[in-house]
């Protein structure tokens, strides 16, 4: 698809094009000025405080390992699920498809509440917590569960789209060339879908890292225990430490921008895609 509109244009065409670009300019100015405000407002002391505070260092560490674990777990589900949803027809598939999409449109806060209700109020949930001894509520493990529930769907949808874009013919040919189903998956479909799956993983990671609302409800905001970076921002803001909160926020923004660039590079400039 050619992008450059190169038709011969009268002045009315130019005005029309300018109108579209005007909105682009307004929106971009809006975003850029907000980021600029953040950057101007930040001060060195707060950054130093952030970097030296043991609580915040702990929160950073918590944020990192939970989000990475969530991403790996999501990919573990996303790859087989994406492939199965892309390739197989089974009864009730439309419903399954919708259920996979649900967490994307779901209010994240409700996801946290739902987990809380499940583990604290229902018998299977209590059985898992008490008899199996897998405690999630107000525990670091709960962070991963919460992040997984909210963000795994992004990985699954990306993987599904990536596999959809690999034409069945490739697998068919691989099969006539001596591959089993598994072989054609491993040697053809997976390598061809790889970039889309990785981009989905990065999106999942960015969401997991920035999650806040449901964590507040499901695991609480206990300093040094279930505190991740987003919790830190909330805690510092609520006691009026805007400078410190902002310093932490910029860390997250930085990570988000890195994630964005990686998605673009991997997707050959295609940007976020579900």
């Amino acid at each position, binding site marked *: 698809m050619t992008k450059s509109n190169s038709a011969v244009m009268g002045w009315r065409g130019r005005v029309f094009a300018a109108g579209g670009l005007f909105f682009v300019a307004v929106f971009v100015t809006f975003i850029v000025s907000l980021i600029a405000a953040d950057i101007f407002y930040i001060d060195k002391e707060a950054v130093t405080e952030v970097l030296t505070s043991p609580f915040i260092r702990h929160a950073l560490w918590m944020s990192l390992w939970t989000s990475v674990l969530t991403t790996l777990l999501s990919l573990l589900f996303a790859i087989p699920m994406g492939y199965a949803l892309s390739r197989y027809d089974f009864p009730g598939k439309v419903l399954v498809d919708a259920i996979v999409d649900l967490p994307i449109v779901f209010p994240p806060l409700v996801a946290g509440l739902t987990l809380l209700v499940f583990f604290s109020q229902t018998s299977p949930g209590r059985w898992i917590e008490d008899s199996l001894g897998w405690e999630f509520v107000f525990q670091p493990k709960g962070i991963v569960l919460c992040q997984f529930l909210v963000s795994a769907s992004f990985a699954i949808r990306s993987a599904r789209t990536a596999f959809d874009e690999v*034409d069945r013919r490739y697998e068919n*040919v691989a099969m006539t*060339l001596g*591959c089993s189903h598994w072989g054609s998956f491993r040697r053809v479909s997976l390598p*061809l879908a790889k970039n889309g799956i990785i981009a989905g993983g990065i999106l999942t990671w960015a969401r997991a890292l920035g999650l806040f609302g449901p964590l507040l409800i499901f695991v609480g905001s206990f300093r040094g225990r279930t505190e991740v970076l987003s919790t830190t921002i909330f805690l510092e803001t609520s006691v009026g430490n805007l400078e410190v909160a902002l310093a932490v926020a910029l860390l997250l923004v930085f990570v988000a921008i890195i994630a964005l660039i990686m998605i673009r590079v991997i997707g050959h400039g295609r940007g976020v895609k579900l």
Partner: protein
Amino acid sequence: MIRAKKLSYGVGDFRLRQLDLEVAAGQYFVLLGPPGSGKTIFLECLCGLKRASSGQVFIDDRDITTLEPRLRGIGYVPQDYALFGHLSVRENIAFGLRTRSIGQKEVARKVTETADMLGIRHLLKRGIAGLSGGEKQRTALARALTLEPKVLLLDEPVCALDECTRQEVCALLCRVHEQLGLTTIHVSHNLQEAFSVADRAAILDGGTLQQVGALGELLRRPGNEFVARFMRCENIFFGEIARKDADGMPEAVVDGISLCLPDSSGDLGDKVEFMIRPEDVLVVPLDRPNGDQRNHFSSRVEHWRDCGDYIRVELNGQFKLVAHMTHAAFTELKADNSSELGVILRPEKVHVLGA
């Protein structure tokens, strides 16, 4: 030898209906049909990529109906080649060999050998993205051939190529076939392409085989109107056998005109549908005497057009006719639009459809 026996398959509204087809060992066979006639689905059933709903597939008399595609020993080149974009040309060609337990050296030797045969040795290190259509086609062919399949299935192998490359690749396919003697089924919707590679062909339409036979037979003795039209015959007539002449030759009446038909075209009162190839229509000067006066009519040139290899003349007298003539013959006639000419349809060139 590959054989389909009462093969059926259904998807959506479309059905392949009990196809019976046998392609002899070492034969180059063309499967013709308009788009949507089920040619690709039929190939996929043969190589096991679609599970036939009923019927069987045999290779060399071995029933392979329930065998997985990877065990069938069929080389398959799909329509858009489906080259693996994440691998180089060399890795594409070696792909099949790597699924077997074959040593590195042996793989390299076979890849080079196949690439040499197809003239793509210089491409081995390249990626897929930059290849031209013809190079892609050769790579896909090499990938299928390295495994030394018993049968080769080609789905519209030259459809995506421009005319010049198309001729080149057709010639290559012929050469490879002569060299390896592989049983080959070549799917195509293009008549010219079929003539340039094969001797035997089948015509598929709406999931049903219309006719199987030598190309010349399909051309001159089509079994039904669809085949006749697919082979680009425009002179098709409907009539009824009204009488037999002195020699017992049947005569059909079309729009009030009597036409002599070849022997054994049917009995009195039979409805018949018959055709004559445009190149078999004899166009003569109006005043030319003719010893054999059967089927000699007068006609007028409605339109003529130089088609390169021949002149196409549309005639309209008692009925519409299209004739193909050589340039020499046409020049000799000194005809132009509206010229009055004689037309002779020699009974032995007339073919009754389905007879």
